[in-house]
């Protein structure tokens, strides 16, 4: 089996995550889509590390994980705050950015 299969898998997962962001309205599910995209990236990084025999790719994936953890904390806190204020978890309800 070629290692590129892992890359294809990563691409498909990434695209599915992106589509989730575009289609789902529940903020939490949208956030899960983002996490999925990050994970797909990590898979690609790990695969590249193996492909090139360089462990730095895994280090990078490790950093992505840490940053993602921080991001989740802040993101979910924001979601909770918005939910408290508006009693809604729908991204479409937060549309004050329009003209």
């Amino acid at each position, binding site marked *: *089996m*070629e*290692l*590129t*299969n*892992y890359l294809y*898998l990563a*691409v*498909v*997962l*990434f*695209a*599915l995550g*992106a*589509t*989730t962001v*575009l*289609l*789902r*309205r*529940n903020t*939490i*599910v949208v*956030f*899960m889509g983002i*996490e*999925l995209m990050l994970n797909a990236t*990590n*898979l690609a990084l*790990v*695969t590249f*590390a*193996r*492909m*090139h*025999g*360089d*462990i730095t790719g*895994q*280090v990078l*994936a*490790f*950093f992505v*994980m*840490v*940053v*993602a*953890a*921080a*991001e*989740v*904390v*802040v993101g979910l*806190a924001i979601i*909770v*705050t918005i*939910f*408290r204020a508006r009693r809604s*978890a729908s991204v*479409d309800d937060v549309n004050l950015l329009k003209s």
Partner: protein
Amino acid sequence: MTVSGGETVLFWVLAPLMVIAAAGLLVVRRAVHAAVCVVFVMISLAVLYVAQEAPFLGVVQVVVYTGAVMMLFLFVLMLVGVDAADSLTETIRGQRWIGLLLGAGLASVLCGVIAQSTFPPPQGLAEANAVTNPVALARVVMEHYVVAMEVVGILLVTAALAGLVLTHRRRIGNKPTQRALAEAKIAAVPTGRHLSPLPAPGVYAQNNAMDTPALDHTGRPLEHSVPRVLRIRGQQREAAELLTAEQTLVHRELEGPDDPVPSVGPDSSEGETR
């Protein structure tokens, strides 16, 4: 380096399942189900990491993502409300088709890139992992990425503080005293507030009694005795149907099948249901 047969099998088993689970994110209505799908994808990824000579990352994936991040998601879901199912009807015109098209387009473009690119022969990490994978990782991190490591540490602390600050709720009025609470309760009586505790739901041996409403002194079922969540989900039972079943059962055991079933009404069921 060659990929072992075992890994090939593992990949072809896991990859389709992962794709299906990820696609589930698009179609399931409840956020909890979506969370379960993501957890599945993440654990599978952990397995793939281990297979890809990254055992440390595999463990971290399970601990951080599945263990911490997804649990956090579930906590927030509980805060926000597990019961609310997400409507899948699209409200922004054309968004669904645009989204699907863009997702597919992105996937195909990236796949095209991968297909077109020529990769070097895979090296494998046997050499790098000779001192075991965590030690090798630690050497790279501590030799070349010390500053990044420290910065990320600061980021984590900051994020934790941010979580505290963002979810902190500032008290805008005085803390209510017991006296004030009591007075507010009394004042709300004319609008239908009960001074006494809510009636407990009916208790019947045959069923999960939480979903059965209690009856008042006239034998009328009391809707608010059933927990709110069950009511919203539409899982409460009608008192009448239960009583009928109960009386049928009792009657059959005591007297025999011929006796007529007494009608359940406000007058006749008093006392028996409490």
